[in-house]
């Protein structure tokens, strides 16, 4: 038997891992953790911009999930359940810190948050000039509500119906928030580029 086939045989499928975890199987818990740790950690890291805080939140999200695994009946995808928990954990942490978390259902926004509609007719396109560090910094500068939707959709690849289920908003609201996030990022990136161009 080749190594690949052995590995395939030995790897738990998610469904098997869930059932075995319900029975207290340590390997099953670890398999579930390894399947989803990157996406959960990545989300926490982008929302907090701090590795220690992100690791604490990752731990908290998985512990909350594992403590309730006995109640999982498969009504929704396991990953959606987990990421909903991660989103809740992150939002609770932000609220504890007193950071302004805009309700995802609200359409009112502050002057500072709203993307400005300036003509900028002579601005060259951003395409081909965005690098990872710039984008990372710009995402970190987004208001938390916009950032969450942007991370879930454009970074993690969730669809709007999944995001709506995870964060408890409407599909329309998810689309609207995403658009505003992208517009705000465009503004931040253009401002940053303009500032760099004027530096000696």
């Amino acid at each position, binding site marked *: 038997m080749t*190594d*690949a086939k*052995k*590995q395939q045989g030995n790897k738990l499928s998610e469904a098997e891992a869930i059932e075995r975890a319900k*029975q*207290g*199987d*340590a*390997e099953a*818990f*670890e398999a579930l*953790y390894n399947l989803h*740790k*990157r*996406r959960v*950690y*990545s989300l926490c*890291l*982008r929302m907090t911009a701090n*590795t220690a805080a*992100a*690791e604490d939140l*990752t*731990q908290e999200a*998985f*512990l909350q999930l*594992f*403590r309730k*695994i006995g109640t999982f009946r498969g009504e929704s995808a396991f990953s959606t359940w987990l990421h909903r928990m991660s989103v809740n954990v992150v939002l609770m942490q932000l609220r504890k810190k007193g950071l302004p978390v805009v309700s995802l259902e609200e359409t009112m926004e502050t002057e500072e948050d709203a993307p400005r509609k300036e*003509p900028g*007719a002579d*601005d060259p*396109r*951003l*395409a*081909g000039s*965005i*690098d*990872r*560090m710039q*984008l*990372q*910094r710009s*995402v970190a500068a987004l208001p938390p509500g916009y950032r969450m939707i*942007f*991370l879930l959709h*454009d*970074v*993690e*690849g969730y669809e709007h119906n999944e995001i709506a289920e995870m964060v408890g908003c409407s599909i329309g609201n998810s*689309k*609207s928030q*995403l*658009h505003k996030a*992208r*517009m705000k*990022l*465009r503004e931040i*990136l253009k401002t940053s580029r303009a500032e760099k161009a004027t530096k000696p």
Partner: protein
Amino acid sequence: MTCEEFERVLPELGDGHTFEQEAHLRSCSACSDLVADLSAISQQARLLQGSEEPSPWVWNSIEVALRQDGLIRQPHLEHSRTPAPLLGWKLRWLVPAAAMFLVVFGVLMFQRGTGQPHVAGQQNPPVGVETAGLQPMAGDDLQLLRTVGERMPSMRAEYEANLRSVNAYIRDAEQSAHSDPNDEVAQQYLRNAYQQKAMVYEMALDRSLP
């Protein structure tokens, strides 16, 4: 269709546009630029996906908590290939090894800061390992992959992908830090990038121990 009408429907647009929207985009450079910019942002966002992994202690802490809660109902040694005290001894060696790795990288970074900037992921490029479109891997990385390949062949591809991803992160962070050495944020990103690489090494060595 006016620009205002077009921007009103923009949040609802997926990849396709109606005939009217296409016609507006052809005739309006401002809206066309806007769509191109938003599309570029969305595409580049994928670069931020899941390139980071939490450190091994996160799982260790989760496992300890689950055992304390009684949710794990098997003895610790049943699924562990190495007796716990011996595993702990081996892991203790990995922590200073990972720290040494960080120190070496930091020293190299400082030395390069006094001369020409040099990209971390390209040091000592070995012969014949450049794959079309990919950066050549450093000798240390290749050695690690060789070790992983010998001990856990099925994991080699995953570790190679991890190393390429974290090396790209280091390159980007170094460029940012070099362009403005006083930028604390850029320096923090660079430290994070080194830590990520140290974690990849730590995990690979931890899992490949017999």
